């Protein structure tokens, strides 16, 4: 997908002291895995230990929290694996070049 894949260490001396590194915690997949994983764990615990007759009546006798929780945990694990297997590599030099080309929330349209 990204051109940044698999290029680590391929450049010449102009790279200076800055090293390429992965986007790590700021990769959007980290945040997705974290939040969905947290939700999954909470729901699984709710489903295992805190389900009551009222909930059962609502869901038509399914343990909805438990199953949704397990699926969310699986989704989170898949995102985490994807993150580990195909990290996005940040190239500080390319980044420097792109300074000023800007984010796109619309506020930079007219400069």
């Amino acid at each position, binding site marked *: 997908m990204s051109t940044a894949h698999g290029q680590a260490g391929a450049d010449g001396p102009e790279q200076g002291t800055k090293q390429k590194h992965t986007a790590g915690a700021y990769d959007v997949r980290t*945040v997705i895995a974290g939040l969905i994983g947290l*939700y999954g764990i909470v729901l699984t615990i*709710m489903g295992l230990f805190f389900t009551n007759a009222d909930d059962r009546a609502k869901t038509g006798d399914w343990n909805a929290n438990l199953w949704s929780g397990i699926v969310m945990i699986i989704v989170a694990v898949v995102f985490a694996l994807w993150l580990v297997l195909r990290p996005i590599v*940040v190239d500080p030099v390319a980044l420097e070049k792109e300074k000023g080309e800007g*984010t*796109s929330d*619309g*506020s930079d349209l007219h400069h």
Partner: protein
Amino acid sequence: MVLAADDTLRLDANAVDYALVVAYFAVVLLIGFAARRRVSDSLDFFLSGRSLPAWVTGLAFISANLGAVEIIGMSANGAQFGMATFHYFWIGAVPAMLFLGVVMMPFYYGSKVRSVPEFMRRRFGTGAHLVNALSFAVAQLLIAGINLYLLATVVNALLGWPLWLGLVIAAAIVLSYITLGGLSAAIYNEVLQFFVIVAALLPLTLIGLHRVGGIGGLVDRVEASVGGDEQLRSWPGTGLSAIENPVLSVIGIVFGLGFVLSFGYWTTNFVEVQRAMATKSMSAARSTPIIGSFPKMFIPFIVIVPGMIAAVLIPSISEAKAAGGTVDYNNSILLLMEAVLPNGLLGVAIAGLLAAFMAGMAANISAFNTVFSYDLWQQYVKKDRPDAYYLMVGRLATVGATVIAIFTAIIASGYSNLMDYLQTLFGFFNAPLFATFILGMFWKRMTATAGWTGLISGTLAAVLVAFLSEDSFGTASLGVLPISGQGASFVAAGAAFVVDILVSVAVTMVTAPKPVSELVGLVYSETPKEQRTDPEAHLLPWYQSPTKLAGISLVLVIILNVIFR
């Protein structure tokens, strides 16, 4: 009679639910702070967009639109009209997104035209620009009102506060959300939001289906309900369009909803287009709406189907629907959540809804802010001030817009199905804009005067149709034309489009065109081919080739149309 939902709807959230909601907003705020302080060049790398893979921008692209309109509006539509609502996705949005990716995006990306008002200014000069900027600003305020109203409805359902207090509190929350810097990380948040919304709506749909006895049970119960088996077919959609003649109904849906409203919305909405512009190559930009079209075509199953379930499962809706008269469908999905979600999942659902409405309103307000401070204030009121001055104008505009949105929310609260209202607004604003835009792009002779006169006459035509209809303006409508509801807005949009084209052509004939040399990058025939093609396109594998992906998406959406006809 109006459904008494506002008195009875009370989501029974407990501490766990609140904790899940708080967790979501904590993450969003952290992203906002990190974006603001630029704590890491990794984040910079993400936000500068140049490395964003197409799946991220594709999801952000549909997530930017997966707000109040989709969730509340489409489920309300599902409850009221049943499967005909699928047209909004399979006749409307998906073909329009493919058109954007295949035809329009090369032009946008290549010509560096980054917003619709900017295109209007360069193509037609200040007349069309002023009209467009003003109508865009007004539309954003009205749509922000819809989001705010829905946000207040959720607050009301959670805490039982009266609507006005909910409106003020919700407005204050959105204002702090914008000020805290969540917006520069918009794409980032939108992708996250997409997953939370799916995590909320998918279980809701499945549990709802289970409660009504599976798909077979839903079919049986809808057949036995007031709408009958007409609600299980999408064509000819006479319920949705409220046009009794089936042939005219199909024409209204295909031309009004499909061509004018949807193409107009998806191709001229710069909040959406910007998502695609944030990619690294023209092929990736073209792929963004095309990749987005794949999840988009399956979203109706988790927004429309819950509405249909709510209409047969929730006694207060089904009884009101059976009794006839005016029914408030806007709470359908909230009532379903109340009825089938246990604590825990309920929290996820509330987080997803609040996130969607808040992001939707924040996008409206910030789009308003941009257009107000740069397109209106800088261009027409005070020129040549330092940047800081316009930033301050922008901040004041944000506060002003939020306050005005409280009042436009009150207008929105008067509609029993918000889609009626929203589509009416789109007919006024998007339909003429699309006509002028597409004509100006492909016809180099079209003149500057034709630009603004076409826009104004198109909008006036739509307003006139709304006045002559039975209910577009509520009791103020005269009822001369036998059209109502969303059908009236399809007709109004069609009229706006046709009148805009006719007036533009007529005015062009008697006024002088711009010199051809000024039209490079603005008119298709005057833009060199190199500017609108990607030299490396043929090197891409098929799964990254925009046109091939668009072909697959088109085939899939046709299959869906055939299965659920």
